[in-house]
């Protein structure tokens, strides 16, 4: 009797866990499926590589380029700064009040809504630093947004590097810097790459902050100092202006493909780096 009840409980629990996992996957499939069925008819060569035409038709190539620009510039700035900050806090700084304050500050940064970053970027980069509505102003704003993500994930992965590696290396008469570059960072690399992947997601997903700092010019940017429109902003605007869900969905498909490609690249690099270790 008791054992039957226990078994039932066990099965119930198992079902619950299974159901939760299933729900997550189901939601993902539903979203991707919805996007695909709504938008796939629009996707062709002209749509992806064509110039935008406000009269309708036309492509999204300028927005793809703008999106790639913002990802590249933000990561080029945020990754080294983020890694250095995390290394400082985890490996160099004496654990104490100062480090706790820095850590609290970075954690608070992750909780701020992106519209606030957008407003800050609009006031500081666009106006005060006279960058104007531009890709560079948006990228710098995005840098601030993803910095805490990179710092956190890098710190977490540095924590997982066994102390015995550090001791083993230092006991062989190496300097701290050598130990960092040859042993600690390579071991932490998978975690650092996870942070970069999360950052890409955050950058691509951002609309409000970019809207306020890069503007909405729907043309091929002539340089990083010109105003431009990313895919996400474009998707938002076409839905809002014309209610064209089909077009917005097609943009969504392209976005998902870009993110998937970037994530796979990051995973590939991570694997390559791990292989290189032996």
């Amino acid at each position, binding site marked *: 009797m008791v054992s039957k009840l226990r078994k039932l409980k066990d099965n119930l629990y198992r079902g619950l866990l299974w159901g939760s996992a299933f729900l997550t996957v189901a939601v993902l499939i539903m979203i991707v499926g919805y996007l695909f069925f709504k938008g796939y008819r629009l996707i062709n060569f002209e749509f992806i590589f064509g110039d935008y035409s406000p009269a309708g038709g036309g492509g999204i190539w300028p927005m793809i380029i703008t999106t790639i620009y913002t990802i590249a510039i933000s990561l080029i700035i945020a990754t080294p700064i983020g890694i250095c900050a995390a290394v400082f806090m985890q490996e160099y700084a*004496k654990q104490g009040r100062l480090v706790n304050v820095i850590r609290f500050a970075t954690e608070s940064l992750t909780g701020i809504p992106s519209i606030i970053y957008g407003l800050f970027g609009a006031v500081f980069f666009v106006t005060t630093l006279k960058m104007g509505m531009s890709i560079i102003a948006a990228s710098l704003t995005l840098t601030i947004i993803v910095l805490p993500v990179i710092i956190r994930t890098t710190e977490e992965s540095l924590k997982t590097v066994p102390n*015995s590696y*550090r001791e*083993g290396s230092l*006991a*062989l*008469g190496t300097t701290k810097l050598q130990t960092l570059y*040859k042993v600690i960072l390579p071991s932490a690399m998978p975690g650092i790459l996870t942070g970069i992947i999360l950052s890409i997601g955050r950058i691509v997903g951002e609309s409000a902050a970019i809207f306020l700092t890069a503007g909405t010019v729907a043309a091929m940017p002539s340089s990083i100092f010109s105003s431009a429109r990313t895919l996400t902003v474009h998707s938002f605007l076409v839905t809002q202006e014309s209610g064209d869900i089909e077009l917005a969905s097609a943009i969504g498909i392209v976005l998902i493909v870009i993110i998937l490609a970037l994530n796979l690249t990051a995973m590939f690099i991570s694997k390559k780096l791990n292989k290189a*270790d*032996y």
Partner: protein
Amino acid sequence: MSINGMKVRPNNTTMMQPSNTEVKISVKNLDLFYGDKQALYSISLDIHKNEVTALIGPSGCGKSTFLRTLNRMNDLIDGVNINGSIMIDNQDIYKTNDVIKLRTKVGMVFQKANLFPMSIYDNVAYGPRMQGIKNKKQLNEIVENSLRGAAIWDEVQDRLKHSALGLSGGQQQRVCIARAIAMKPDVILMDEPTSALDPISTLKVEELIENMKKDYTIVIVTHNMQQAARVSDRTAFFLSGEVVEYDETNKIFSMPSDQRTEDYITGRFG
């Protein structure tokens, strides 16, 4: 000779004339504090060249802490303070700023094998490379000699480019010894090097230690008293941060002069 079932090699008594050997490390009145807490009390002992010196004692008695003062690994811990002096080759290691050079001269093998996630070759070549040796032929030579020195060359020579983490625990520990040897140190510190190993691997490492002492001065921390009796020439018994007794190993194990030493080695506590 046998004490409580423990075999002490009889040849230890005849083979050694330790008092004639040269002093390699001389420790005088060494106190060590972790913050306010004192961990070592006025340690004074001489470690002799080309001998194996064992440090024994119950957990938390300060033997590992003491070992780590000899290559200044305690410097890595915040709040450690040291009084007294440690002379290696008549140079006070706490009066020089060149910790890097000290650690190339005083190698260390840890309790748990801590090979890096690299190939066997890269692990052994790591230290020399960091010293700036780039010549491939020279590195090959160092790697081979070090692995031979650690009696593991035959087992790994076909898979030098494979991950070191694929080796068994005992093999990994011997590669760790090879990695230490690759720096051509004078002194090798071992912190319970066999505590995570099976008996056969332990035996191999112990044989290795015996063979190594002609080239190196070895200081070994061990929990295992039979091991101390088997491999060492001198033994220091630590208790609560003090050296209770330090003498030739066979004397410590046959007629300890302090009651506490006798209680410990006969298994009454610890």
